[in-house]
């Protein structure tokens, strides 16, 4: 036996003994506890396949696909998928070069400044693998500052930081501290505005090299957030952009290739540290074009379908962490997921009590239609408060004051004088 699995085995055995002595369950918590047979399946793979079918039934497939686009892949563990994503990147690029779609995405190009990315993103040109290279910690990262210094950029950035701070003070001083404008637009929080005001007076005329570490960090944090195309402040001009690109080359080489603190964007490779969408787009959707997001989304969907990538993306979406009690999902998505959870258990009888109230009418109708099909040989009991929703069922029971008031097929009940017809009319 392999020594590693030997010690793993010993560890499990010890856990089991401890559980026994403390009176807890001795079953293995990490085992596969799904009873595949009970739901008419034979493997985990079949369950995934079935899960995708059920997502379609409850009208949630598109949402999970989108979550999948925001997910990531481990290129080393899934080389085939990585290869397909690269194909999708090439196919999408060809579509984006067509006349109707030109200019919707600004591609990642190691030799060019991307005006739809922030200054920090432009410098890193990839994903931070080491947290000290994250956008937030960048102003404190001595290694990065050293490179910026080589290009004389620290003084520039501090100067721009001062200008941004002055502008933010000008714009947001009169705004209510609780206003959503702060979160949406300000580079400085309401609480920090006074700090920056004193900082500006205190450090006036002081060169970047003579600033305290904290003052320098505060001033540098502002320009790093600037997105040229979005903020339109005119503070990052072309020569500044060129020097940022030069610094990027050194950073990419030193901390991407040599030290693996950054995983840089590479047109020939999949980047496991950014989303699948970023990998396929290999660029940013531009600011300032109406419907650019929708158009790019449609092109992306077309390419994904053409290359049969959709189910792989939905699988990636199935790994999305939905938060405690689904808090990271919208109310409608939570409701759809709750129905999916019931449907996948393949019950003989499914009872839904106002289970679709959070959904819009067309989604409700789609789901009802799909469930009718799914439950054609089983029983579906649906509690509704609007009589016109009951018309498609075989049997209707009308409850009044806790008692069965009427019962029968829609044809039987839809007669003059019945409670059902009265309720129907009222609706």
């Amino acid at each position, binding site marked *: 036996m392999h020594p590693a699995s030997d010690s793993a085995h010993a560890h499990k055995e010890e856990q089991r003994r401890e559980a026994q002595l403390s009176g807890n369950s001795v079953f293995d918590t990490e085992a596969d506890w799904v009873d595949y047979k009970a739901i008419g399946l034979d493997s985990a793979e079949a369950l995934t396949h079935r899960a995708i079918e059920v997502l379609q039934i409850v009208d949630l497939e598109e949402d999970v696909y989108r979550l999948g686009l925001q997910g990531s892949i481990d290129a080393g563990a899934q080389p085939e998928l990585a290869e397909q994503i690269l194909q999708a990147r090439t196919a999408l690029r060809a579509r984006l070069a067509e006349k109707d779609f030109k200019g919707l995405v600004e591609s990642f190009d190691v030799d060019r400044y991307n005006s739809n990315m922030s200054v920090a993103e432009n410098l890193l040109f990839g994903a931070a693998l080491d947290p000290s290279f994250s956008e937030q910690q960048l102003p404190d990262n001595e290694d990065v500052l050293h490179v910026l210094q080589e290009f004389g950029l620290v003084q520039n950035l501090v100067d721009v930081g001062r200008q941004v701070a002055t502008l933010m003070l*000008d*714009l947001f001083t*009169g*705004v209510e501290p609780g206003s959503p404008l702060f979160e949406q637009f300000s580079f400085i929080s309401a609480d920090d505005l006074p700090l920056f005001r004193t900082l500006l007076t205190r450090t006036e005329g002081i060169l970047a090299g003579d600033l305290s570490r904290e003052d320098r960090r505060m001033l540098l944090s502002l320009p790093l957030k600037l997105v040229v195309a979005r903020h*339109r402040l005119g503070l990052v001009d072309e020569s500044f952009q060129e020097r940022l690109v030069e610094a990027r080359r050194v950073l990419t080489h030193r901390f991407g290739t040599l030290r693996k603190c950054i995983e840089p964007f590479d047109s020939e490779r999949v980047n496991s540290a950014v989303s699948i969408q970023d990998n396929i787009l290999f660029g940013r959707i531009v600011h300032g*074009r109406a419907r650019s997001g929708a158009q790019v989304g449609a092109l992306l969907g077309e390419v994904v379908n053409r290359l049969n990538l959709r189910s792989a993306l939905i699988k990636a979406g199935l790994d999305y962490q939905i938060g405690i009690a689904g808090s990271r999902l919208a109310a409608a998505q939570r409701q759809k997921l709750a129905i999916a959870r019931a449907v996948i258990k393949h019950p003989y009888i499914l009872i839904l009590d106002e289970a679709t109230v959070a959904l819009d009418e067309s989604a409700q109708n789609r789901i009802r239609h799909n469930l009718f099909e799914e439950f054609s040989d089983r029983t579906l009991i649906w509690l509704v408060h609007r009589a016109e929703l009951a018309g498609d069922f075989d049997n209707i029971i009308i409850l009044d004051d806790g008692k069965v008031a009427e019962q029968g097929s829609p044809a039987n009940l839809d007669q003059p004088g019945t409670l059902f017809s009265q309720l129907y009319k009222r609706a």
Partner: protein
Amino acid sequence: MDINAETETLKKVPLFVKLDSSRLKLLAFTSSLMTFDDQEILFEAGDPSDSAYVIMSGDLEILTDTEQGYAVAGVLSVNDLVGEMGVLTNSPRSATIRARGQVKALKIDAEMFLNLVAENPSVALSVMCQLSEKIARTHRQYEATQARLQSLLAGEAGH
């Protein structure tokens, strides 16, 4: 075009004339500068009114849907404000707006626009005046139409 140039343009919009510079700058900063190609639709009649636009450069056509297709009912140009009535009354777009040539326009989010009106009496007053004018104009048109209708009916009765 940067935020200062945008602020200068906003100053020329009649509705914003009395606003101070930093307020206008905030308005520009929280808005998006959109580019539209020739013939591109900004919004269609019946769309929800989620924003107002100020034209920075180029012309926009107001289209009305007739039985023979779209007809151009008017043209808007630089410094004009578009789509603010739908935002103020929280009603769908009343007409379709299309770009004539390339157009740059500042898109002001509906919530931002309403805040601006709520917080600034001068803007609110200006909006009231414009609305009153519009009502007066519509009323005059209505009376003219009524008169015309009456004379037509009278003519028919005479036959």
